C-alpha cells in the first residue's frame, strides 16, 4: 500500500487519467467556443452595449422592451410558421425517399449521394442560387410555369409567397439529410419482422404502420428535434433571398436579432433576444425528449 501511494505514475493511475486527457481537447474547444460565449451572451443581455465602448448594466430593461416589441413578436410567429411548415414536410419526404432508396437498384449509392449534396452546400450559395431561380423577371421557375400557361409569380417580393419560397428552398436543402438518417434507421430493422408479417398476410400499409413506423420512433424523434432546432435558427436563406421582406412577412427571429446587433448596434438588446431564442429551443427540445420517454 505504501509503495503504491508513493509511485504516482503507476499504470493504474495513468489509466484513470487517460479518458479525461482524451476528451480534454474537445472539451476545451467546446468550452471556449460554446459554453463561454453562451454565458457571455447571457451576461450581456442585462446591459446596454454597442460593442465599442463600455457596457452599462440596465437590469431586465431589455427583456421588458422585447415583450412589447411588435417586430420581435412578429418574427417569433414567422419562425413558428417556418418551423411548422418545414419539419413535417422534410421528415415525410425524407422517409418516403429513404423507403424508395432502400431496395436494390442500379446507381443506388450515387443517388443517395446526390440527394445528400444540398445539405453540404454553403447556405449562402444556396440562397443566392434560389434567389436567381425565383426572380420575378428573369428566374427559371417563372419561365417553366409560363410554359404551362401560369403567369409570372412574385416569389420573393409578395407577402404571400415570400415565406413559402424560403420554405421551398429549405426543403430542398434538408430532405437529403432526413433521407440519409432514415435510411440508417430502416437498415436497422431486421427483415425477419417483415417476413413474419408477410406470412400472417399483412399488406404494405399494415407493414408500415405496425413494423416500420414504431421501429423508426427514435430516429423520428432525433430528426424532429434537429429539424426544429434548425428551423428556429433559420437565417442564411432569409438574409440572401428576401432580406426579411416584403414588409416583415419573412423576418425570422435570428434575422431580427442580427439586425439589432449589427445594424443598430444594440448588443445588449440583441443578446436578450438570443437568450429568449435559446430558452424556446431548450423548452421545445426538452418537451420532445420527455414525450419520447413517456411512450
Amino acid at each position, binding site marked *: 500500500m505504501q509503495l503504491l501511494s508513493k509511485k504516482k505514475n503507476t499504470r493504474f*493511475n495513468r489509466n*484513470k*487519467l487517460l479518458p*479525461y486527457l482524451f476528451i480534454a481537447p474537445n472539451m476545451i474547444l467546446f*468550452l*471556449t467556443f460554446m459554453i*463561454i460565449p453562451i*454565458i*457571455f451572451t447571457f*451576461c*450581456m443581455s442585462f446591459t446596454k452595449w*454597442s*460593442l*465599442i*465602448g*463600455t*457596457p452599462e448594466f440596465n437590469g431586465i430593461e431589455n427583456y421588458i422592451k422585447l415583450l412589447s416589441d411588435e*417586430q420581435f413578436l412578429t418574427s417569433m410567429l414567422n419562425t413558428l410558421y417556418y418551423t411548422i411548415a418545414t419539419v413535417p414536410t422534410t421528415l415525410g419526404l425524407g422517409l418516403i425517399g429513404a423507403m424508395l432508396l432502400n431496395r436494390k437498384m442500379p446507381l443506388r449509392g450515387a443517388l443517395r449521394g446526390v440527394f445528400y449534396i444540398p445539405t453540404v452546400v454553403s447556405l449562402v450559395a444556396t440562397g443566392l442560387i434560389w*434567389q*436567381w431561380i425565383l*426572380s*420575378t*423577371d*428573369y428566374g427559371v421557375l417563372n419561365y417553366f410555369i409560363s410554359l404551362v400557361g401560369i403567369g409570372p409569380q*412574385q416569389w*420573393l*417580393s*409578395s*407577402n404571400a409567397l415570400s415565406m413559402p419560397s424560403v420554405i421551398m428552398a429549405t426543403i430542398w436543402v434538408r430532405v437529403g439529410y432526413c433521407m440519409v438518417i432514415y435510411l440508417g434507421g430502416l437498415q436497422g430493422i431486421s427483415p425477419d419482422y417483415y417476413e413474419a408479417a408477410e406470412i400472417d398476410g399483412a399488406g404494405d400499409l399494415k407493414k408500415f404502420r405496425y413494423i416500420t413506423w414504431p421501429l423508426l420512433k427514435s430516429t423520428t424523434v432525433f430528426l424532429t428535434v434537429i429539424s426544429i432546432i434548425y428551423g428556429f435558427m433559420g437565417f442564411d436563406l432569409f438574409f*440572401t*433571398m*428576401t*432580406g*426579411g*421582406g*416584403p*414588409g*416583415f412577412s419573412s423576418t425570422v427571429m435570428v434575422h431580427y436579432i442580427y*439586425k439589432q446587433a*449589427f*445594424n*443598430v*448596434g444594440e448588443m445588449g438588446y440583441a443578446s436578450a433576444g438570443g437568450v429568449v431564442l435559446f430558452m424556446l429551443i431548450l423548452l421545445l427540445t426538452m418537451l420532445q425528449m420527455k414525450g419520447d420517454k413517456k411512450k
Partner: protein
Amino acid sequence: MKKRLLSLSVAAVIAITTLLTGCGTKAVTDQSSTGSTTSKPAEPVTIKVAYWASAGGESDAFDALVTKFETANPDIKVLKEGGEFKDFYTKLETRIAGNDVPDVTRLQYQAVGRYSSNGVLRDITKELPADYGTDFLPSLWSAVTYKDAVYAVPQHTDTLAVYYNKTYFEKLGITAPTKLEDAWTWDEFLDISKRLKDEAGAKYGFVYNWTKGNSYRWLPILFQKGGALLSDDLSTSLIDSPEALEALKLSKRFFDEKLVPAGTSVKGTEDINNIFATGTAGMIINGNWLASNYDKSMTNYTYGVTYMPRDKAAASDMGGNSLAVLKKAEHPEQALKFIEFMTSQESMTYFVSNGGFLPARKSITADKLTYSVKQPDIMKVFIEQSTTVPANMAQAVASPNMSKITLLLSDELDLLFTQGKDPVEVQKALKKGIDEVLK
C-alpha cells in the same frame, strides 16, 4: 484524494477560463508607449492599416501608394490589413474590443459618426495644418467632423446619378440633359420612364439602388423636394414637413405605377445591375463605381450618364470613404503622416483614376484625371453631381444615430412601397421613430 485533486483542477481550469473571458470589461493591458525620442529611431516603425479594397484597380492602387509611401519614408513600414468589404466593421469592432487596435482605418462617411462619438478615433484637429480642410468638398469635411473636432480625412467620394440606356433613348428620340441646370424634374423623369415602358420595349422604366437595406439613399429625393432629415444641429427631426410628404408620395409612385420592379424595394435582394444591363429597365440610378461593370456587362446596348432629377434643389447621395487614426494607435504620428500622404493631391488623383472614384478635393478637377472607363466623359457628370450633396444631409448621414435611422427608414419605406401604407402614416411613424432615436 486523487479524484478530488482531479476534479479540483478541472474546476480551476473552467473557473480561470471563465474569469479571463467572462462578463465585465477586460483589464486594459498597459501598452508600452513609444517614448518620445529626441533622435530618429534606429528601427523602422510599423503602422497597421486596416482597409478593404475590391480586386483590380482599387486594390492595385492601394498597393502602389503604400510602396510609394514606404520609399519616401524609410523609417516607416506599413502592415497592410486589407480584405473584402463584407464584415469589415464587425472585424474592426471585434479587434477594438479585443485591444488589437490598428493605427489607421478606412471608414465610410456614414460610419465615422459611430466611431467618433464612442471615443474610438483620435481627434486630429490640432495636428493638421490650420487650413487643411479648405480644399476638401464642404459636405465631406463636415462628415468627418464631430462637435467641431476633426476625426478623419476624406480619401475619395462616390455619388449617384442616372445611367440611361442610350439605345432606347435613340429609339425614342430623347436627348439627356448635358448641364446640371437642365436636369430633369421628377415629373419629366417619370414621364420618360413611362415612355420607356410603353414605346421602347423595356419592362420597367428604371431601378433605384437602395436595395439590401441601403435606405439612406432615399434621402436625396427628400432634399430634391426641398425637405431635410434633421435640423442643422442634429437635435430635432424635420421629417414632418410638407416637403417630406411630397417626397414620400413621389417615391411611392415608383411602385404604384409599376415603374420599377416590385422586388427592388429597400429590403429587396434582386440584382439591379443585371436588370439594367439586360435592358429590362431603361434607366438606373446608381453610382460611379458601376461604370466599368456596365462596360463589361452591357453587350446589347450602349449607355450614357446624366444628372439626378431635381425639383427645388439638386442633391445626390454622399458615398465614399475616409481614413482615420485610432485613439489607441501605437504610432499616431506616423499614422497621421500616412493619412496625409494618402489624401494628398497627387495620391488622390492616382487613387481615384485607378479605382473609378471621385476626388474629395476641389482642386482635382476633371481634366486632371484619366479614368479607364470606355466613356471617360461620364465621370465629369459624376464629379459635378458630387458637388450637389447638401451639407445638412452630409452631417445627418455621418451622425452617430444614423444607423438606427437607416433601419427605421428601411422598415417604413418598405411598408410604404410594398404594403400600401399611407404616406401620412409613414411620415408620422418616421417622426416618432426618429425623435425616439434622438432622445
